[in-house]
């Protein structure tokens, strides 16, 4: 059974890496957005494998349902499609793609090695680990979900109010940012042209 899970894990991991690669390289922002959505779904599946069902639910319903819709809307409203960035200045050499890829590799190697070393060098007791533990009974899962809510309302009772306050602030702020009426003078020439044409059309 666990071998099966490992197989699934590896498949999902490869899927994730592919989607990530696609988000860099596809030519349209819209495509990047839906590849991102696939990425998020993959992550949620990993949560499911890690016996974190409620995180799965949160991931899907907040990321998959909320943020991705935002992304798609924005991608359609601000249609603009040029992707890879190549620096242009006297530092062009070290800002070229090669440098960036090398930086990426350095980071990746370190970021992969560090936690693994940190775990393997120091002997934590991992007999409680339930990662991908297929023998977990259903009642334990139920109990964990119950514990999650319990912990959220007792120990971390500040989390929910602060999060909701943050989200409310973000909502109002974004509405204020977007709803604002723009003077023609403030705008750049392109947009000014567009707006004027629009008004002419009316």
């Amino acid at each position, binding site marked *: 059974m666990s071998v099966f899970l490992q197989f699934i894990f590896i498949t999902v991991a490869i899927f994730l890496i592919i989607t990530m690669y696609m988000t860099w390289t596809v030519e349209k922002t819209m495509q990047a957005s839906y590849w991102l959505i696939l990425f998020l779904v993959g992550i949620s599946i990993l949560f499911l494998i890690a016996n974190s069902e409620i995180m799965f639910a949160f991931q899907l319903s907040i990321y998959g349902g909320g943020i991705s819709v935002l992304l798609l809307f924005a991608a359609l409203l601000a249609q603009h499609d040029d992707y890879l960035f190549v*620096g242009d200045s006297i530092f062009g050499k070290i800002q070229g793609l090669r440098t960036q890829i090398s930086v990426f590799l350095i980071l990746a190697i370190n970021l992969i090695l560090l936690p693994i070393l940190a775990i*393997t060098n120091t002997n934590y007791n991992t007999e409680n680990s339930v990662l991908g533990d297929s023998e977990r009974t259903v009642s334990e899962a139920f109990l964990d979900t119950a514990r999650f809510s319990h912990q959220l309302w007792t120990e971390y009772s500040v989390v929910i109010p602060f999060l909701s306050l943050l989200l409310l602030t973000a909502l109002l702020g974004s509405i204020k940012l977007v709803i604002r009426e723009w003077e023609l003078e403030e705008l750049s020439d392109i947009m000014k042209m567009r707006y004027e044409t629009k008004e002419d059309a009316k």
Partner: protein
Amino acid sequence: MIDATWYLGLSGFLFAGGLFGVLTQKNAMRILISVEIMLNSANLAMVAFNGMFGLGIGNLDGWIFALIVIGVAAAEAAIGLAIFLSVYRNFGEITVSNIFTLKEQEVAN
């Protein structure tokens, strides 16, 4: 039995990838997408750690922090996209490499 190191390696790689995207992308939308990737990899690491140390003994801090990260990500996405829209209205594009009003302009002297 999947070891936590698998998750951690994957999340590290994904994090680096997100960082790479942030560095290399020209388009603000894509930068935001890469940021989401980074956040998700961080979440993955947190959930993995929780599953390794906390879940068995009924301590779920990892999940709660992941939840906080998700909420913050939602707020950040909303604000960021709003900012992109207003930038788009102002400049007619959201290519970060073409928006350099920060840059010290050439002074004709």
